[in-house]
């Protein structure tokens, strides 16, 4: 089946109740199988510029790459190749944001987090930088698939603090990696299998800082039949709990399988559809 038939996507982004600017940027396209969420930071409106650059650059450049790789059984469809390409596009976006920040004084110090999900051949490539997250709801089990690049996560990993203390930590929003801060960037990419019925959630920290995982799980479970409403409800929950930050969510529901046609016969069939 083709991607737009098997992926349902819902997107919401909201400034929250406290901030006047929305520095988050989102992009989602079921036909490309691509979802991007970026959470910008930096004075005045520079955060918006950084997150906007990240999502726009990646959406544009990556969407040129995607059509060339579908339907090919050679190297281009190879997950390793695709993964490398993904990393190089993110590094290019990093450099573009870094250069803008260096050359324009009003953008000095800007940066952005990123979480990107690309659905291809019954799998999803997940790339992330910073503390924007990807969660998966599978058969009632809700799981965080990304690990924040944040000071808090490192303190947790080192055993300096417990999960209970982390909930009240003052450092929860200090990220250790972001796009646009340094010319070099380390991107974390993982490939996960995808099952029909899975619901994936990309979100900025405005959601997971304000809403407990259990409440997110309950919302997705209850409203799985209406993805738009589920996205809306998540934003409501964040705002009802104080809405201290911009909140963005992208929900993706997988309705069926999407294997890439491999033999010439399957390619012909796919072309005729």
């Amino acid at each position, binding site marked *: 089946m083709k991607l737009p038939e098997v992926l349902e996507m819902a997107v919401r982004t909201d400034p929250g109740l406290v901030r006047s600017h929305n520095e988050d940027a989102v992009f989602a396209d079921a036909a490309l199988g691509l979802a991007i969420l970026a959470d910008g930071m930096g004075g005045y409106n520079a955060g918006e510029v950084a997150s906007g650059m990240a999502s726009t650059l990646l959406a544009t450049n990556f969407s040129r790459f995607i059509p060339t790789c579908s339907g090919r059984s050679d190297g281009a469809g190879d997950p390793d190749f695709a993964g490398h390409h993904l990393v190089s596009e993110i590094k290019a976006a990093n450099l573009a944001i870094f250069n803008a920040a260096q050359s324009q004084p009003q953008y000095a110090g800007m940066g952005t987090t990123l979480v990107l999900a690309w659905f291809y051949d019954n799998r999803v490539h997940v790339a992330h930088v910073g503390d924007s997250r990807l969660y998966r709801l599978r058969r009632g089990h809700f799981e965080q698939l990304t690990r924040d690049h944040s000071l808090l996560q*490192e303190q947790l990993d080192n055993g300096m603090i417990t999960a209970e203390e982390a909930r009240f930590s003052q450092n929860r929003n200090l990220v250790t990696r972001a796009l646009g801060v340094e010319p070099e960037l380390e991107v974390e990419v993982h490939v996960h299998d995808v099952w029909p019925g899975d619901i994936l959630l990309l979100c900025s920290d405005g959601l997971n800082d304000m809403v407990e995982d259990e409440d997110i799980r309950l919302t997705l479970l209850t409203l799985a039949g209406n993805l738009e409403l589920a996205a809306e409800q998540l934003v409501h929950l964040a705002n009802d709990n104080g809405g201290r930050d911009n909140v963005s969510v992208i929900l993706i529901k997988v309705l069926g399988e999407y294997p890439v046609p491999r033999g010439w016969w399957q390619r012909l069939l796919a072309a005729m559809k």
Partner: protein
Amino acid sequence: MAKLILSMDGLVLKEIALNKERLTIGRKPHNDIQIDNLAISGEHAVVVTILNDSFLEDLNSTNGTLVNGQPIKKHILRNNDIVELGKYRLKYMAGEAEPSGDFEKAQAFRPGMAKLASEMELAPTSGSPTRSNIGVPPPPPPAPTIPGAAIQLLNGPNAGKELELTKTLTTLGKPGLQVAVIARRPHGYFITHVEGKQFPVVNGQALDAQAHPLGDHDIVEIAGIKMEFFLKA
């Protein structure tokens, strides 16, 4: 500094800084914000600003003043509140504390942070600024708790049965046929259509796709089952 953005039909007309203690809104020319439209009363409303707080008061206008869709008499303005007077809208934007130069740097990154933080050398000392709470007012007080509520089935095999709405979301109906959800939010209970061709009926009126606030003793009909919503004292 806080400000109001005046617009009509999505068109921004002007920005008004809340730089005086008393700012009047009305149709007559002596108002600080004059809106020359017959739906606006001569003296319609006033915004009183004390330090960082702004209060909106309706001056017994003929057509009333709405904040976020609810009619108000007096209201403490919160960031992004939408005030409606007739066809005109005023968006309230809370002022941001002016960040100092140092603050701004800290808000993003210190050079090298991205590379070195894994070595824990740059662990910030306590009280160091975080991305989330710089230059913003303190978080709003925790949401007020609302009274409990329940629904009672009025017909069907389980007539008389009561269901307490203790969760943030409670679904009603039959999956595949018609499902609606009641969301428990700090300012009340809201019913929304989830799936199915038929929309829920509240007090004889079919809903649209929007969330609908539930009032005490409202009669809701979903998938042929009638039920009564009521608040618990």
